[in-house]
């Protein structure tokens, strides 16, 4: 275990936000879920107890009947926000006094730094480049992420769960978010920061980042694994079949998810075809990322589909 190496990575001023992220994201996820689950239980109780529902004046736990049903933003909300603003300012002040901007030497066009890493918030994107064509990972996927975030209001037909913490009423949305943000995005940022060393090789945390390390690693295209060497268009067709198969299987799985329970089915019935297809498309593409990561890391598959124009 090379603690010095681990410390070097963790203590880099560049990486402070990521180290903070590793603590803060789980904490706030837990904190939000604690409230959400308590509220869910309250909702269940009120649904079962109509009488209680009439007198219960808050959607949040804990409560007492004599408490005000509503409170004003000022001072009750704003003072909390003010307090938080002070705390954050203190943290930022200490941070900026103790750590200088991580500036480096003037760029040398004759020398590429190794590993050559993007800023922490882009490390996820950079990690994607390992698994996909630069065109897909660098252009298509980021565009889809942004467009996908933009279409959420238009395909989210769930009327419940606004203004309070709840998990039960927005299971689908919350799980999709957690999967997309925490599992895919943050894990990739983590890999990019802590695991990718010189030569963008895979170093488990605590391993020394040796610039001379050599590993045997051959990635092959799917058609090579299948032993198809007859050239195009067969190679393309094999890939298209595999992609088609993936779309069929994951489209079906996604559909199963969309119609998982009674509540989901109700929402599904309210969807137009365009809304449904949009949702399907984004989700199927999103699933493709972890699928490809696993294919690459476990089976060393380079591309599933190889065409003269693009590779997947």
């Amino acid at each position, binding site marked *: 275990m090379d603690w010095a190496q681990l410390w070097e990575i963790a203590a880099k001023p560049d990486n402070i936000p990521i180290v903070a992220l590793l603590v803060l994201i789980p904490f706030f996820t837990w904190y939000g879920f604690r409230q959400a689950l308590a509220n869910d239980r309250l909702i269940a109780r009120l649904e079962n107890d109509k009488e209680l529902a009439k007198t219960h004046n808050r959607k949040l736990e804990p409560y007492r009947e004599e408490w005000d049903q509503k409170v004003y933003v000022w001072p009750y909300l704003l003072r909390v926000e003010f*307090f938080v603003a002070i705390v954050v300012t203190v943290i930022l002040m200490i941070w900026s*006094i103790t750590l200088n901007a991580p500036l480096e030497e003037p760029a040398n066009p004759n020398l590429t730094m190794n590993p050559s890493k993007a800023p922490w918030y882009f490390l996820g994107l950079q990690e994607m480049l390992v698994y996909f064509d630069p065109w897909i990972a660098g252009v298509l996927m980021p565009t889809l992420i942004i467009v996908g975030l933009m279409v959420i209001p238009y395909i989210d037909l769930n009327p419940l769960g606004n203004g309070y913490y709840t998990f039960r009423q927005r299971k689908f949305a919350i799980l999709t978010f957690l999967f997309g943000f925490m599992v895919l995005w943050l894990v990739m940022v983590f890999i990019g920061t802590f695991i990718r060393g010189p030569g963008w090789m895979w170093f488990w945390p605590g391993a020394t980042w040796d610039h001379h390390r050599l590993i045997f690693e051959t990635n092959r295209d799917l058609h090579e694994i299948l032993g198809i060497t007859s050239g195009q268009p067969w190679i393309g067709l094999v890939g298209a079949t595999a992609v088609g198969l993936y779309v069929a299987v994951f489209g079906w799985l996604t559909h199963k998810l969309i119609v998982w329970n009674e509540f989901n089915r109700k929402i599904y019935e309210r969807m137009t075809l365009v809304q449904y297809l949009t949702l399907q498309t984004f989700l199927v593409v999103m699933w493709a990322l972890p699928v490809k990561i696993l294919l690459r890391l476990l089976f060393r598959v380079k591309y599933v589909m190889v065409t003269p124009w693009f590779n997947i």
Partner: protein
Amino acid sequence: MSILRKRPRLEDRPVPEKDPITTSSLATPIAIFSLLLILTLVWALYDEILGLRPWIGYQRDFVKTYQKALVEMKPVRAQEEAAIYGSNEYQELEQALQEAETAIKPALAEIEQEERILGPKLTAITKPFTTARSRVQAAIYLLETANESSKASLEEDLQKLREGPYTVEIPEPDGSLVEKSYSYGEMEEEFNALKVKQGELQARTVELVRPSTQLRRELNTFASARLTSVTEAQVEGLLTRLDNFRVEIKQIYNADIGRVAANGQTPLVDRCESCHAGVREPVILTPETMGGNPLFASHSNRELLTIHDPETFGCTPCHNGNGVATVGVKEGHGNYKHWLWPLYPKAHFDAGCLQCHEADRHLELAPTLNAGKQLFSQRGCQGCHPREGFEPEPRLLRSVQKSILDLRLERNEVEQETQRTISTADRAETNEEADRLYNQADALTLNIADIDTQLDRLTVREADVMLEVKKVGPNLKEVKTKLKKEWIPVWISNPHDFRPTTKMPRFRLDEQQVQAVSAYIWQSGIDVELPQQSSGDPQQGEILFETRGCLACHSIGEESGATGGTFAANLSRVGEKANYDYLVRWIHNPKERTLPYCPIHQRDITPEDYASQGLPFQFDPQHAQCPLGDHLLQVQQPTVMPNLRLSWDESRDVASYLMMQAHEDAAYPDAEYLDDSNLAKQGQALVKHFGCAGCHEISGFENEGKIGTDLTKEGSKPIERLDFGLLTTQAKQEGWYNAKGFFDRKLADPSVWDQGKVKEPLERLRMPNHELSSEEINQLTTFLLGSVESVIPTTHHYAPDDDREEIQKGWWLVAKYNCMACHQFSPGQETVLENLPLYQDPDSRDQLPPSLVGEGARVNPNWLSRFLRNPALSETDTNRNGVRPYLKARMPSFGLSDGEIQQLVRFFNALSKQPLPYTAVPPDPLSSQELTMARELFTHQAAPCLRCHATGDAATDADSSAPNFLLVPERLRSDWTKRWIVHPETIRPGTNMPSGLFRQQDQRWVFGLADVPSLRSYTKDHAELMVRYMFQYTAGEQRRLTSR
């Protein structure tokens, strides 16, 4: 472990009585965090004002310690001053000054009196006169430019103006005013007369005060030359200055010298003096005087600062570091990962010189760097590693040879073209056409003549450069005649075992490889029989070896018993390896080759080759033509070892002595395998792989390139490009992951970066081990650290285009031929010879080779180039010193090329600031009367010149201690000769030449040792007379004098 205990759900926990949202108070946390916020603000302010400005504290400390030091210093300074002012000499000077001042007082008073009369008169007349003059001049102008009609009237006006009258009130000495009336002309005359008078008075004053002014100057320099530091008054001034010391960023700004990078130039901003406040103080501050704090010490070398004014050069251009940063020591010194120019460590300060002084081989104030460069070339680093400036000759030779080939091709083409043109002309249809073509052919013929001239010039140059090409190691083509066979593998396997100080490094070869390399070297050698030599007298040889100057370069004796120079091999065990016959020939003339090498045929030219062309087998610089074609041969050994011009007998004596230099029990195992041709084949590949030809001439490898990394810019290689191998992590953790760490360790153990690596034998690092001492490593590292891509604008590089350039170039030659081992080039420089036991006896100091300080001012450059070409100054009698036959040490023949000779001559001239070309001005010939007087002086009993100066008579020359006068006319410069006979002691302290031969009398030099009756009536300069005599001194004159 309460955190792991199952906690009740949120809704199951006890509910508080009151609504926490409306009733709880956030006041306490807000108050606490507000306080924290204020504290962070205070922290930020502290950081901004003091934390990030450590120099504020430093400057305050500096003022305090400096004040204390100054106060302590004051009485000491006062004491020293008092001692100087109280000294007899000073008092005498002061007395003399007072006397001189008193003596001129009456005369001065008189002048003052006259001035008092003259002054008011001049004042009174000046204004009216200048007014009148303006008017007259304006009237003249009007007249000149007027048209004819008005000329008459204007002329009249002018006439009136000239006539005046002008009335001026002239004050008289008694104070009364006398009214005088002048015409313009009279007034002008009067004015000019007064002016002349005033000038005369002033001139008289100057003349009068000249002696006292001179004395005052002497008085002042007397004090300032003896004061070791500032005066008491200056200390007082410094203290006052400190009282008004402003704590602020001390910054040097210069837009002209900042770093040049791809994106342009950054102005130089050096704030180093914000902390190092005492760097430029007039008082020399040591850490001791500054309370043990090295931070406040002044610059360790004032001279450097005088040459490189900090206002112009700043600090970081020499020292590196981050001159802008003021937040801390680490930042300011640039000792962090991303600063590309960290401060040079103290041991490597000299490295900073190289950025601008790349062209300098020798820098007076950079001894470590000089030593590094010396090591680099002496140890043969440049044999493998290209490095700009080092060993430029082979490259130059190749380019000259290529130019010659190109020109020859061009000549052929032009010739063919000419033939074609002529034949076309012959068949031309019209006469005009034929004429035109013939003209064209003529032009082409001219062109050929032009090419021939160029070819001639280049061929001369080629011959020149061929003489200049040297190799660090010996020529291995001659191993068969030179060496004992069995010794070779022993030597190759570890040269340091046999000769610990050798420059031949140890290659990491296994036994089989050693045998293979030895076999190739042996078999590639030339097979010739050398003439057998009879044995010599080793005792005589020892004397010759010790006295002729061999020890200037070579050493003898093992380990601590070694004496002599380190430039060439230690010869303690040379008898174990060498063949006597070869050694004799080598000592007799090291430049002599067994066979000449032809660069065009790429092989050695044999006697058969000469015979096939019906030519005698003769090759030397005068007979360098290849018998097989029209090109030059390499006819000399590429060695810097000079020819000492010993006779064959002497050579045999020295060789016999050297053959005795062997361990008695020396025995070497049989090495029959050296004749195995299969082994030799393997050896050939190894010789190529390990780059043996970088230092040695080896058959088949004459054109071999260098195998190592180019080191010209090695110091600015990014650290990522320096391969620390498996030690990278360790280097980073232990803090030596930097260029210095790399160079230091690589030089100490060149295989270090292979540690732990699994590599095929021939993939391993090839650099051999030179067994460098830590001091040598330090010097080489300094040189490498300094070898950088310069970021200083070229305008600030030291690249003079005047005399100083000749000095720069000359030092490369001086170093190449190790001239400094025998001769002194600058005052204070020690030579190898003067430290030898032989010369420790004060009487034997006369036997040291002459110092060359001021050589350029002393000798005629034309003579010097003749002397350098042949130091014997004779074609027939070569076994002698041409100038100083009495010296046992021999000025050898270096076989210099014409270019090198010219370079050295220009170097000496430039060192002495003598202009070139030099035109000798022969002194006036003597009249017969003067000749008689001069002879008398020359042979006067009080100073008979020929008692010490050589005359060319072997019997007396053995005791002489000065050069022959016959050389004077062509050798010396007359101005220097006069200075020399008058003041020899100031030109060459410690010389045998007596001082005080002449004394000054009435603005001239007269013979000072005796009263010579015949010269009493001679009013001219006696020293001048001697010089004139010496410059017409002939052999006949000498015979005449010696026969008396």
